């Protein structure tokens, strides 16, 4: 049932990131211009061109979970552990009492990417079956001796749907459950889907999230081959420079962001704290000119929210920090806001935490919700010299107050998948 009166609001947040593993530390880090990008310490990166990442140095999922839930962690790769730890934070933050809600109307919609394998888990099998010729494995041996030395539940640690599954199990969330896999934009598409599910009246409350760790030797090796990663290893915190003309490329990271998105009446009835309203969503594709798809996404989202270009305070951009993507994004945003009284302003938190794959968009959405709640906009880090081919005004230097009630969030992939959402300050 399409029901436009069923509006979504954000009533809980959880963030795990390289600049903070609780909401306050994360928010203070954003405002203080802290960077979590550092030399990789989880493994020896010396043979990689890019040796830096937004790594979470002390992450231990056990610190987040209740004792009874901890034994499940052994069937979860680091990415999935990030998801369940963050989900616990978000639930605690939302003050939802699970005994007081209808759990069949409690959904989980996540963004996720390829879950990186932990190499030692198949190393014994590989060693038994390695043939002298490079790149050859003896499959006859693998089928017998190899299989004997791999843990029975090995595959479950790496299925992309396991983030949302494990979260649903820990929180008894029996409503719609989905995992969307569009990289940087996955979490924003998940938000759009959650809004639709709420409008069709199949849920009152959804966890919209994402989690990913790319700080993994296999992930980093693979991605070093095809992503334009920064090699600015000497000065990690200055490497990722969105919209800056001296940008050096992409820097990966790890983390999780989760938003509790709730139907407004449901939220009010339980006396929930409301961080922000979610008023519009749009998505589009363009395989050659992402600017076109970003522009259309923004226009659709703003039309749905009934917002004009002059109502928007700023755009929280993806801000990849690569030449091609920054230019597409800036052009798309500028086109969507053509005709506004003042040039549209843009900020991004990528330089603080890095590119988090399937969790980028929801960590960034959490920063939008915090901006709307606290009335402050974090500045873009490492923005010193404007790039003339990025026709937007970038908020830099120090945070500034929020002046207007609406923020637009954009995310996209270099493949052309784009989305935008409109969030609004909640006036009590």
């Amino acid at each position: 049932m399409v029901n436009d009166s069923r509006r979504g609001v954000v009533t809980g947040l959880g963030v795990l990131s390289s600049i903070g593993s609780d909401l306050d530390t994360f928010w203070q880090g954003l405002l203080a211009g802290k960077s979590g990008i550092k030399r990789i310490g989880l493994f020896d990166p010396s043979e990689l061109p890019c040796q830096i990442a937004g790594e979470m140095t002390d992450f231990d999922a056990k610190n987040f979970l209740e004792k009874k839930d901890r034994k499940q962690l052994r069937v979860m790769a680091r990415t999935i552990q990030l998801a369940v730890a963050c989900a616990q934070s978000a639930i605690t933050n939302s003050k939802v009492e699970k005994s007081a809600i209808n759990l069949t109307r409690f959904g989980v919609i996540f963004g996720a990417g390829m879950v990186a394998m932990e190499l030692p888990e198949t190393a014994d099998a590989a060693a038994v079956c390695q043939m002298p010729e490079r790149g050859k494995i003896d499959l006859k041996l693998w089928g017998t001796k190899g299989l004997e030395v791999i843990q029975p539940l090995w595959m479950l640690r790496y299925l992309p749907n396991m983030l949302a599954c494990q979260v649903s199990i820990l929180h008894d969330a029996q409503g719609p459950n989905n995992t969307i896999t569009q990289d940087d934009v996955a979490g924003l598409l998940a938000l759009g889907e959650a809004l639709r599910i709420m409008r069709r009246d199949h849920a009152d409350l959804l966890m919209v999230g994402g989690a990913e760790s790319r700080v993994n030797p296999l992930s980093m090796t693979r991605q070093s081959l095809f992503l334009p990663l920064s090699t600015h290893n000497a000065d990690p915190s200055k490497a990722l420079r969105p919209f800056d003309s001296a940008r050096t490329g992409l820097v990966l990271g790890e983390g999780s962001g989760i938003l509790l998105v709730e139907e407004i009446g449901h939220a009010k009835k339980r006396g929930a704290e409301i961080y922000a309203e979610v008023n519009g969503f749009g998505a589009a594709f363009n395989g050659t000119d992402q600017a076109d798809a970003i522009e259309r996404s923004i226009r659709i989202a703003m039309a749905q929210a009934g917002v004009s270009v002059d109502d928007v305070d700023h755009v929280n951009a993806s801000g990849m920090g690569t030449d091609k993507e920054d230019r597409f994004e800036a052009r798309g945003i500028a086109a969507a806001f053509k005709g506004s009284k003042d040039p549209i302003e843009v900020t991004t938190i990528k330089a603080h935490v890095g590119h988090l794959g399937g969790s980028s968009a929801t960590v960034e959405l959490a920063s939008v919700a915090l901006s709307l709640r606290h009335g402050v906009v974090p500045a873009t880090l490492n923005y010193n010299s404007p790039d003339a081919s990025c026709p937007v005004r970038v908020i830099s230097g120090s945070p500034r107050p929020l002046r207007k009630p609406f923020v637009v969030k954009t995310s996209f992939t270099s493949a052309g998948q784009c989305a935008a959402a409109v969030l609004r300050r909640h006036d009590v």
Partner: protein
Amino acid sequence: MSDREQDSGGFRDGTRKSLKRQASMSRKYQRRIVITGMGVVTPLGDDIDTMFKALLEGRSGVGPIRNFDASTFPTNFAAEVHGFQLSSWIKDCSRWEHSGINSKFAAAAAKQALANSGLIEGMNSGKVDRNRFGVYLGSGEGIHDFHNLMWETANSYDPSTRKFDYAKFCKGGRESFHVGSEADQELHTTAMHLAAYFGLNGPNFNCLTACAASSQAIGEAMDLIRIGDCDMVLAGGSHSMIHPLGVTGFNLLTALSTNKANPQGASRPFDKERDGFVLGEGAGMLVLEELEHAKKRGANILAELTGYFSTADAFRVTDSHPEGRGAIACIDGALKDAGVTPSQIGYVNAHGTSTQVNDRVESLAVKHVFGEAAKHVPVSSIKSMMGHLIAAAGAVELITCVEAMRTGWLPPTINYEHPDPECDLDYIPNKARQSKALHCLSNSFGFGGQNTSLVVSAFTG
């Protein structure tokens, strides 16, 4: 309606809210969704007619695994697609040069579906708005370069000390991995290729919910049209897990049949002697379209997609809920979404994997929701013939439902020999049956507890 009213209140005391919701339930959806194109790549044929004929003949597509040397694996058989060439569907397929098989299967099935829909001409002439044409896939994960990955792993590892040399791995991997095929393993690439090649510039999604993925993709695609975000969506899925790590993973979980003595009899859904599922591979794609949009261009309407619901078991990663709570809510929700009663359902295309637990719980759930009507409703699992296409299974099964309605023939469950007292429905044993179905239910239940049910109906104007 009264059941719905009772179980839908967010709060137990929300009487007024429930009444309000009931009022909104009685409004019909304004936008109806029809199917105007379909395409498949399956172990039983890579076009719909060949596949459906094989299904009605009760043929098995299972044989020894040829994709790699599986001779010593606990399971050495599967239902594979043989002789597949993307170039026989798409002349210039250079953009898929380094793609994995998931992406290639998807492209071939998508080409069939789009050609079948008659929309390609309209897109080329500008009569069809590409910006209102989305993509929502449930296509499987990329396939690792097994040999190079494991060789470099072994080369970086000292079994005697159990020390792993990560720097050595990074160096070796960078030398031996292929740039193009590594890039194409990323999970957003299959949907990107289809949108870029065919010029589908609306919203672009891919979801992964294991064995429910393509059904869930179709359901959410339907919702994109209902809500007005799109007028057309290319929806479906593609998948192959018939590769060394796929078979390794499922064998370790003991989920696959190991009936090496009789591979073609190994997939035996609902039969008492079932011992696990058989892997299949392939793709199924559908063009979903808003009814008025389809009518206006004089499209050939194949069926109407009328119901969708999804739930989570939220129970365990390895088992379904023993009382089928997620499956029951899911089937029930889809029937209500479609506005049909159980007795109106003329065919159930079961998830029917041939594992002990799935088939028992699915039978239980159908009986629970259908009540008296469960005694009469024909149910079958085509996984008995083409194995389990994992993420792609739901799309191919929905297409099978459409063909069943169009031809008046229901495909059988083959290898059904030993009745199981816990599975006591009419499974259309071994022989196709002539029967007119106006509404069909298709179930997909994913590993990890995601459940999706779809209802498809004969289009009656």
